[in-house]
Structures are given as C-alpha cells and as structure tokens.
C-alpha cells in the first residue's frame, strides 16, 4: 500500500516507507533494535511497523548493542535479513567487535558459503543540539574495515531507494542516516529505477572546482555552490552516496574537468574519508590538479557541547573558505 506513495516526504518518513516496503516484499526481513517497536524509534523512523508487522518481525531488543548485532548475525545465518537500528552514532561501539570481527568477516571466513545480509542503521552527525555521543560521524571507522559497505543518503529519494538496495544486498551494509536532515522533505519516486547503490551522483554541475560530500554535507555544499555562483564561481557538487566502496571514477571525471577538489564531511579530518579521497584522486589526477585536494571537516577533538557545534561543524563559510584557498593556488 505505502509502496505506491510518491511525493514530498521527509527523509525519516522515506526510510520508514522503505522499511515498510522491504518488510512487505520479503518475509525474511526483520527490524530490530532498542525502542523500535511501540515507540517507533526515538526518531520515529520505525513508526507503525510493529503494529503492522507484529512483534515477531519488528523486535524491541534488550539494551545491548553487541547482543543486537550478534543475534542479527545468528538470524542471518538462519536465513533472515535483519535491519538493525543503533539508536545514535555514539552507541555503536559496544557492537564494534561483532561488526568488525564477525559480521565483516563471516562471508570470507566461510569461503563464501554463508552470506551476511545485515543492515545496520545509524542515525549520525551533529546539528541537532544534542548531548554527548549523539552527534558523531564515525564512518571512517567502518569504511576502513574490509567486508563492510558504508553508504549515506543525502535526500529523501536516495534514503528510500538506498535503504531498499541495502536490504536487498547480500553484504553487510552500514547505513548512515543524516539525522539533521531527517525532517528535510524531498520527492520520493517509488516507481523509478534507482541508480546503483554505490554510484556517486553529480548533484550540481560546475566547472571551476569540485565539492565532494555525502549525507548531511551535500546540502551544505549545494548551498555553498549557490552562494559561490553569486560570486561568479561555478562549483560542481558530487554526492558520493557511498563511503565504501567510493565511486572514484565519478570524482575523477569531475576533477579532470575542474582541476580542483574540496572534500567536505562532518567527521574529523584526521584519518577521515577526505584523506582517502584526497590520496586516491591525487594519484589518479596528478597532472590535472591545479591545487592540492583540500579537506573541510571536524577538528581532532571530541564533538563539542551543543552550544559550540555551530562553530565546530563545517558550514557554508568554511566550505567557501576552502574554495577560496583552493582557487588561490
């Protein structure tokens, strides 16, 4: 029923519809996590699912993240396709061992004999004025780990489709949901044929410099590009969508055109995804780059208390400052 919906939806609701459609399409799909049942999750992303699919398929779990992921692995071994919710970014770490040593490696350990179709949903990133552990961007800590795939949608349509694709994937997918964009509306076309899950998307074409981002920072980059236009600069914005694998081809094509690249993410810059993108694109485009790849992101400091997050988070100005610096080379 809901799968026919097509129109303006907030990102959170788009994910809800996607989960609903997945639960309908495949009886092996399960939703599990803390408070995902009656409450519908603290962000209401699973709202109404337990009511409609029952406690057997939408499962309130004990408060233990390692237990949630560990039992999800067991359920996957039994043929289920669990979609696990981690309540906030900062609470994924008790499950880190199960994710890194078991979930990521089981398929290889079994020489391909078993599959691990587990999706781990993590509402991530800052900008919502929350207390400690509720605003982090830990994607690099997962993308470095072979066996995992990591994606993050930036808009409602991608949220819907990428979640469906993640659930259909036979590999474990860490699905980073840009929580500060949960309420941003966008058109969701549930009848369209979606792009491949790990393909980047040129969200705005331009000629002078490439901005690469994913998740919450795509909007920031689009705003920066709009502001730059007023100053006569044409910025291309690439929405990476996937942090593992990274669609370097699309970025490369863009940089071969623009000659300059700024990577933007909320996560700390040090050892962040921007480093990997900078290193690889520099290798691929050494003779095209007119300036070094610059990175805009978090500082090497714990996510600050809410009253400082506006200063801490990369915003329009910090992006444009990097653009200025890049163009000044």
């Amino acid at each position, binding site marked *: 029923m809901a799968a026919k919906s097509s129109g303006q939806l907030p990102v959170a609701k788009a994910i809800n519809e996607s989960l609903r459609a997945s639960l309908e399409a495949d009886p092996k799909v399960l939703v599990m996590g*803390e*408070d995902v049942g009656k409450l519908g999750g603290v962000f209401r992303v699973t709202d109404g699912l337990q009511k409609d699919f029952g406690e057997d398929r939408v499962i309130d779990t004990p*408060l233990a993240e390692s237990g949630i992921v560990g039992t999800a692995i067991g359920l996957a071994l039994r043929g289920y396709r669990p979609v696990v919710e981690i309540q906030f970014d900062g609470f994924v770490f008790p499950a880190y061992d199960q994710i890194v040593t078991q979930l990521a490696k089981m398929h290889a350990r079994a020489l391909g004999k078993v599959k691990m179709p587990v999706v781990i949903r993590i509402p991530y990133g800052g900008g919502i004025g929350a207390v400690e552990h509720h605003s982090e961007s830990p994607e690099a800590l997962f993308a470095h780990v072979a066996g995992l795939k990591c994606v993050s949608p930036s808009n409602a349509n991608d949220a819907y489709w990428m979640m469906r694709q993640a659930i259909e994937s036979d590999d474990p997918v860490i699905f980073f949901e840009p929580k500060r964009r949960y309420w941003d509306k966008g058109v969701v076309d549930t009848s369209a044929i979606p792009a491949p899950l790990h393909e980047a998307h040129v969200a705005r074409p331009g000629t002078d410099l490439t901005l690469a981002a994913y998740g919450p920072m795509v909007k920031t980059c689009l705003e920066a590009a709009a502001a730059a236009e007023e100053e006569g600069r044409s910025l291309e914005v690439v929405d990476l969508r996937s942090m593992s694998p990274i669609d370097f081809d699309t970025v490369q094509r863009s940089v071969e055109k623009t000659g300059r690249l700024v990577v933007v993410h909320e996560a700390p810059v040090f050892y962040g995804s921007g480093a990997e993108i900078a290193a690889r694109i520099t290798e691929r485009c050494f003779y095209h780059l007119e300036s070094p790849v610059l990175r805009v992101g978090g*500082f090497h*400091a714990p996510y600050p208390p809410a009253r*400082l997050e506006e*200063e801490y988070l990369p915003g329009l100005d910090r992006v444009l*400052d990097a653009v200025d610096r890049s163009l000044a080379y």
Partner: protein
Amino acid sequence: MTVESTAARGTSRSSSGKRTAAAKTAAKKAPAKKSASRAKRGSAPAQPELVQLLTPEGERVEHPDYAIDLKPEELRGLYRDMVLTRRFDSEATSLQRQGELGLWASLLGQEAAQIGSGRALRDDDYVFPTYREHGVAWCKGVDPANLLGMFRGVNNGGWDPNSNNFHLYTIVIGSQALHATGYAMGVTKDGADSAVVAYFGDGASSQGDVAEAFTFAAVYNAPVVFFCQNNQWAISEPTEKQSRVPIYQRAAGFGFPGVRVDGNDVLAVLAVTRAALEHARSGQGPMLVEAFTYRMGAHTTSDDPTRYRADDERVAWEAKDPILRLRTYLENEGLADEAFFAGLEKESEELGVSVREKIRTMPDPDTMAIFENVYADGHALIDEERAQFAEYLASFADADETAGTAGRGH
C-alpha cells in the same frame, strides 16, 4: 505487611500479562517432564522479597534483616532532601521547556532511591552515576546548577569529580559500572576502607559491561555496591525486555549477594545501602542492590511516554509516592510541625529561584574551548588546527572591520 502493594504492579500491563500466560502454557506443555522440574530449580520465586520499612500508607514496619533507627531531625533531613531534589528537578524540566536547556532527564519518582542511597554514603565513598542521579549529586554536595551544564550544552560534564567524589554523568549505558569497579580495586590497593557505588538502570543490566563489572568485582573482591534503580522502563521498553527474573537475582550467579528494596521507601533504601556499603567496607566484596521504583515522568524531555505506556500505571504509582509517604509518617508521628513544612516550602522556592538565575547567566563556552583539554600533554595537530581556526575566525573580524559585513555563518 503491605509489601505486595508496592511490589505488584498497580495495573496489569498487557505485555507482562502475556509473558505470564506464556510461561504457564510452557509449563503445562511438559508438566511431567523432569526438565520442567529442573527448570523450577533455576528460576525465581513468584513474589520476590522486597525490603520495606515504610509502607506506601506511611506506616513503619520492621524487616528481620534490615533495621533502622533515625532521629527526628534525620528523618526531616531525608524529607527535606527529597523535596528539594524534586523541586530542583521540576525546575530543570521547566527550564528545558523555556529553552534554557536542550534536554532534561527527570528523576521524578526516584527521590527515595537516590536520597536513601546517597545519604548512606560517607564523604570518602565514591559515586559513579548515570545521567539521572541528581538526588545523589545533591547528597554528595555537587552544586545543582553544575548538573545542568551538559543538558544546556555548555559542557559535557561540569564539575570536578574529585572535589565531591561524584564522577561525571555517563551516557553510554553501563560503562560506569566498570569504572566504579576499577576505582574500587584501587581503593583496596590503597588499603582504604572507602566504598564505591555504581548506579545503573534496569535497561543497563543487559549491557555486557555491567556483567563484566560483576565478574571483575567478584574476582577481585572489590568494595563496590552495584545500585540498580529499576524504574521499570528503559525509554519505551518494560523490564521484561531485559530480564525474565528480578534483577537482584543476577548477583548470586556471580558470587555475591543481591537484595531488592522498595525504592520508594527512603528508610529501607537507606538501611539496605548502609548494609551493602558496610559489606563492601569490611572486605566482603561487592553487593547488588535493586531499588524497585518507577519513572513517573518521561524518559527525558524529548520522550513521549503516551506512545508506549498506559497512564493508569503511572497513576497507580502515584499512590506509592516516596515523598508523600514520609510526610504522612512525619505528620502521623508528630515528627515535623507546620513551621518545618512551611520553612521547607520557602527553601524550595529559593532553590528554584537560584537555579533559574544561575542557568540564565551561565555563559556559553568560548569557541576556542573546542580545542581545550583534548589532551593533557598536548598534541601537535590540535595546535595546528587551533591556530588555523583562529586565523580563519580572525579573517571575518578583518572582513567586518574593512567591509562592515558579518560572516556567512560557519
């Protein structure tokens, strides 16, 4: 004895009703089987023992293992603590509504569990709280306004843990149980006879860290009291989603005693916590106290409990209010007069005013605080990033000066 009146839920919750029914069916399925009889050996008595010294009706009762004899001023002191704590708490809730705080985790209903245990502590005892132990903080002498800093978003912990032996609030569920155990191991190494208390919730009892804390505490015989406030909810999940037997029973399997106390009875909580602390102090190792209480309000100000629990459950628990029952007792026994209650009302009011004032004048941190205290001994990258960011910020100041325009927002 009216122990059951507190132990039993006021209204039968449908999910808990189901669980009982299911258990019965299972038992019926294989009634003659030997395994069924064995199952019983491992499982709990239907009505767990609940230590109570003051009934919901304000009547003093005795318990064979736990006695208490308090002077009138001590009783009034406990009452005062609970009233002021509740007042502070409700003030904080209002301040959140007024936008002064980003969030608040109310302790409403848990005053007896916190004041009773908090007042059992010596100064040299050390507390490891969750994020809801405002009443314990009060007992340890932490300035209430300091508790608000992290909820306002000006810091992630606004006090020096060592000045009151009250550790920072810990948000990652269960982590602090291990810190408490390690700290207690250190107490033993120092040859001190202090005790340590680790607070945690019913939900937290599921975390591996809490189980590991039990193991370490038992193996090293650490002087730590595990104090579980079972307020029956972990956000939207009832305790049945965490355990199918009462939580205090967890302890025996790790080799130390556990006891369940009426968490809305400040006298019983005080008596039981004192005994547990003495147990720890005297070299007998850890003990688990489960304070059976109820979260009267929402999980936090962000929560909407109407989505998952019936209001009549809360209403039923109102009759077991920890403050009310002590007041009834004080009044019935003539242990406090009108002047006391009136004076306390005034003090309460003043506390509210002072907290309000303090919060409204609480300054935002300096932007550059982002880079402070990340390392004790410094880190080259922090220095580099601090300098770059300062330069970046200064460029706006320059722009402001020259062009008179504001920055475009960071």
